[in-house]
């Protein structure tokens, strides 16, 4: 949208830049941003007689983090596998950036997967490759020259604070380090969609916090759309109440909602036995009357 039609708002002590206002409106009116990064339309999936997803419909908008909560076996991780085409739905549609990928074959899915980063529960690092080769994997597969690969790998490892581990093998890393290398590997090539499959499961609280901070940095500084599957409530607290900003010294800091007027781009969805039993903000989740949700939040 052109900025020329935007009226100038000015005042001696309180002026708003025309350019700033223009860019804000342009972003809102950008048709590309109106297309969801991920969309499920009435998706059904069953393994033998067990229903895993029962008519699931939801959207993840550009730049949004969708936190999917729920107990084990509720179909959370299945959603991620459907987005990547690792599983196919029995009925319904899966759309990635507005493109219906439901019936894509493996060859077509390979092209779609190149736009998506995936962080696996245990990292899923390739045992036979070093940290460097794991992170560089996607670039090596694309045949990118080594002189271009190395700076990119180092940039990603700096992003997860693991540049020192570049020459280590996966079996020399702790659980938290493996997850962070997994995140670096998922982020190489700057995908605009990142899927997290219980990335903090089994980690100590400080390491879990670090993983959540990485997800916040992606959301707030890199404009990445993501699905964050978890069953840990502290993940929800971090992702829904804090945001990442760059301070005057150029460092990334995390501030709590309320300290500044802001809109944290995280939405929550709760699953139970293949159905969405809640979709909304974390505040409305905490006020939900559903007994299962109450029990899930309280832990008893």
């Amino acid at each position, binding site marked *: 949208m052109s900025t020329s039609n935007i009226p100038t708002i000015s005042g001696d002590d309180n002026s708003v830049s025309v350019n700033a206002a223009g860019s804000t409106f342009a972003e809102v009116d950008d048709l590309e941003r109106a297309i969801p990064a991920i969309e499920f339309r009435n998706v059904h999936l069953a393994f033998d007689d067990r229903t895993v997803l029962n008519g699931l419909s939801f959207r993840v908008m550009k730049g949004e983090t969708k936190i999917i909560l729920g107990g084990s076996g509720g179909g959370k991780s299945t959603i991620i*596998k459907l987005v990547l085409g*690792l599983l196919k739905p029995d009925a319904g549609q899966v759309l990635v950036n507005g493109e219906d990928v439901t019936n894509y074959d493996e060859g077509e899915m390979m092209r779609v997967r190149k736009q998506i980063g995936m962080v*696996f529960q245990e990292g*899923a*690092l*390739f*045992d036979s490759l070093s940290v460097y080769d794991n992170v560089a994997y*996607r670039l090596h597969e694309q045949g990118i020259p080594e002189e271009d690969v190395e700076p990119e790998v180092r940039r990603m490892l700096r992003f997860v604070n693991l540049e020192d581990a570049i020459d280590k093998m996966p079996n020399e890393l702790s659980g938290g380090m493996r997850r962070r290398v997994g995140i670096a*590997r998922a982020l190489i090539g700057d995908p605009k969609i990142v899927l997290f499959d219980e990335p903090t499961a089994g980690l100590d609280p400080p390491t879990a916090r670090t993983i959540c901070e990485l997800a916040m940095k992606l959301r707030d500084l890199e404009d990445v759309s993501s699905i964050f599957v978890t069953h840990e409530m502290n993940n929800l607290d971090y992702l829904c109440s804090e945001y990442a900003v760059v301070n005057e010294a150029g460092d990334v800091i995390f501030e709590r909602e309320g300290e500044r007027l802001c809109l944290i781009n995280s939405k929550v969805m709760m699953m139970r036995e293949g159905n969405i039993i809640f979709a909304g903000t974390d505040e409305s989740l905490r006020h939900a009357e559903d007994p299962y949700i109450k029990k899930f939040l309280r832990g008893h």
Partner: protein
Amino acid sequence: MAARAFVRLFKRPYYIPEMIAQMDAIGVGSLTIILLTGFFTGGVLTVQTYPTLKTYGAQSQLGLLVATALVRELGPVLCALMVTGRVGSAISAELGSMVVSEQISAMRALGTDPIRKLVAPRLIALLVSLPLLTVLADVVGIFGGWVTATALYSIPSSLFITSVRDGITTDDIIGGVVKPLVFSLIIGTIACRQGLGTEGGTVGVGRSTTRAVVMASIIVIIADYFLAKALQVILGTT
């Protein structure tokens, strides 16, 4: 799966380093057990057949018997069984472990086709290595038979060698190379299929490895019977 692996082999990216690494692991890595198997099989053939041949005064045919048995049957089949035990189990266990630790899913998520990256190089390495290993086992087996015949039964060296040379035909050699080609496809396909189809965690890895070895061994032996008959018909040696 084998057909898919071969079709995708000719599309970019080519996994030449993986193929070379697999040939090293499968071919060079199996050298010791194949040489030992060949040598002692040739030796024991001499030990078991010499008394019978002596009864009929046919000691001069010892070389022919050892060489024919090795090149036609024992070389290809024993090599295939040894490679099934060593390589088939390793392929199945490795791929199975990659499945349960989600490395295969990660590979697919990163835009790589596991059939091309993992299955095709292993199949090609087996197709190249197994016939070479079989030929080596045949040669070492005949050498083992010669050592036993000359050392234990004092058969003249020239008599044994002449008997071997007269006994082996081109058809025997063709059959001895065609069989391992088919066996390598059987071993590779079954091991990769079982490995990639692993379900149920580490217990599942054990199950799929056992299944891969048992199935490949049995199918190799059954295929050997039909191949022997088919080769006789094709080469006109019935």
